[in-house]
């Protein structure tokens, strides 16, 4: 390959990257533009690529709508409670798997727990739709979602906490034992501070997965409890979809995950790759 040829290839490849960047950003740009338009401008036959009339009030419009506020509250309750529960169970099990059960039994248990995350939830959701109705709180409640989101968040938390605990040198704990620390105290004083950053990232990851979840919420809830991913597609007035509010709300709901990602990027990559990429 000649030098000229190489330059050309390089340019072509960079052009491909640029095209993909445009492809990624255009829908987001159009989302932003749409969120600033009035409804009648959105419904025109030819869409405008820049709002003729700016209507920043759309963003206030979300918060004026009681249903939207309620959906944010519902989402916050479900995702936060589920995160706490997942992290608690995951830390316990992850610690036991990393420290006490290092043989083949522990390894198989760890992979069994992780495998629960990979299965399609179809074999769980259909029965749960009927089984939760028999419980005192019913299917259409916060508790049912908080419990069911454990299906995907608890295996993730367990697995990742195990990976993080394995990374902390066990010699520190042994030294603590020799100093007369009880295991409980050694765990809190020595090991937990070391895995704390990892724990935060696991919590954030669990929180985002629960925050963005749609399928479980759509099938089990929707009347008395309505998380925002279920609420947004129903943003209508009569037969008309209020696209500007849909887009404004979506952009607002996107902010927490984006901010968390920017701050905790390294840890999140570790979590998203099941601990394989050290990041």
């Amino acid at each position, binding site marked *: 390959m000649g030098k000229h040829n190489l330059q050309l290839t390089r340019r072509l490849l960079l052009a491909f*990257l640029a095209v993909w960047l445009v492809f990624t950003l*255009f829908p987001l740009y159009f989302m932003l533009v749409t969120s600033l338009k009035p409804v009648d401008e959105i419904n025109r036959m030819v869409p405008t690529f820049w709002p003729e009339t700016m209507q920043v009030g759309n963003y206030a419009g979300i918060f004026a709508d009681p249903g939207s506020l309620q959906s944010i509250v519902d989402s916050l309750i479900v995702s936060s409670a589920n995160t706490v529960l997942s992290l608690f169970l995951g830390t316990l099990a992850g610690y036991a798997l990393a420290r006490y059960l290092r043989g083949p039994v522990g390894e198989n248990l760890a992979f069994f727990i992780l495998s629960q995350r990979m*299965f399609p939830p179809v074999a769980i959701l259909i029965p749960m739709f009927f089984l939760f109705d028999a419980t005192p709180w019913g299917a259409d409640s916060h508790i049912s979602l908080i419990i069911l989101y454990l299906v995907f968040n608890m295996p993730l938390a367990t697995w990742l906490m195990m990976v993080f605990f394995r990374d902390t040198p066990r010699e520190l704990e042994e030294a*603590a034992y020799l100093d007369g620390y*009880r295991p409980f105290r050694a765990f809190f004083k020595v090991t937990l501070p070391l895995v704390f950053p990892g724990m935060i990232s696991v919590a954030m990851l669990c929180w985002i997965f629960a925050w*963005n979840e*749609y399928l479980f919420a759509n099938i089990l809830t929707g009347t008395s409890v309505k998380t925002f991913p279920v609420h947004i597609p129903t943003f209508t007035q009569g037969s008309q979809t209020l696209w500007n509010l849909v887009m404004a709300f*979506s952009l607002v709901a996107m902010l927490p995950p984006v901010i968390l990602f920017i701050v905790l990027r390294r840890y999140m990559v570790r979590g998203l790759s099941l601990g394989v990429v050290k990041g």
Partner: protein
Amino acid sequence: MTTTEPTQAPAQRVINGRASRIDPKDYPDWFKAKRRGGSLIVHPLVPAVMVGLPILVIVAIVIYPTIWMFYHAFHDTNMMSLFSGDWAAVGFDNFGLVLSSDRFLSSIERLGIYLLFGACLQVLLGTALALLLYEGIRNNLARTIILILLVLPMMLPPSIVGVLWKFLLQANNGAINHLLINIGVMEATARIEWLDSGLSLWSLVLADTWQWTALPLLIVYSGRVSLPPAVYEAARVDGASSWRVLSRITLPMLREIIAIAFIIRFMDAYKFVDKVYVMTSGGPAESSELPVFVAFQKGIREFQIGEAAAYAILIFLFAAILVTLFLQYLKRVLRAQQTQ
């Protein structure tokens, strides 16, 4: 942090320490070690309880419903009989019904298309883009900013991405059609019916690719960042061409990470259903139904619980094969990482 406190001088204290009988060599079995009084330092039940709690949760919310499904897959349960409690065993009838139905077979075919042109292509694209971004952009800050921009779609809930693309792909006044007209690809009067039966599956693939190419991209990019620079330095000194560096160094070293990205993406894609609900509801005329979606429709909209269970079991069994294979691979990768 308090981590330094116990580590400072453990050696002198060993002699009069309360737990002096522990020999560090006995670790990981040190929960068998005893205190002076003879009681166990960590009761053997402690780890059992710690791992037992999540297992208990899994039994309650995963195993029990799965058994429920297995049971009803062999019965003629529907909405009425479920509540009155009278269902009859029908053997493999439900499975026969499912396997012989066109609806199931064509949904499998669509899943094949989706996995090939959705999931697989996303991993290939993501890998290519990640390496391009790392090698092509020299400025560190610019690289990070572009990475964050490329990953933005992943931060939206999949259902919202469905809503967004449904909006963009409207035939008459959708942004995509008019964008194509504006840049001169299409005539002003032409309209592509993206959500019609001919293209609805491909529109789903498009929206999904827009969102999830970012995941393999992010994983592979981070993997590339963590490769040792010394190897590349050596290759540069030897005068290896960039093509050779890519095919002989980068790709082989990233092989496992790319495989893991593929596994994660593939398993997610296999249960893909949320955008189907929001964008097309399986339609028009069942033209974008995937197996998981059909199972949900059968069970929760049409209340044919026996048949839905048969669907779910078939999907589950195939997933079990995939998951087993994937976990075997993951086990190997992690073992290799630990011995390094």
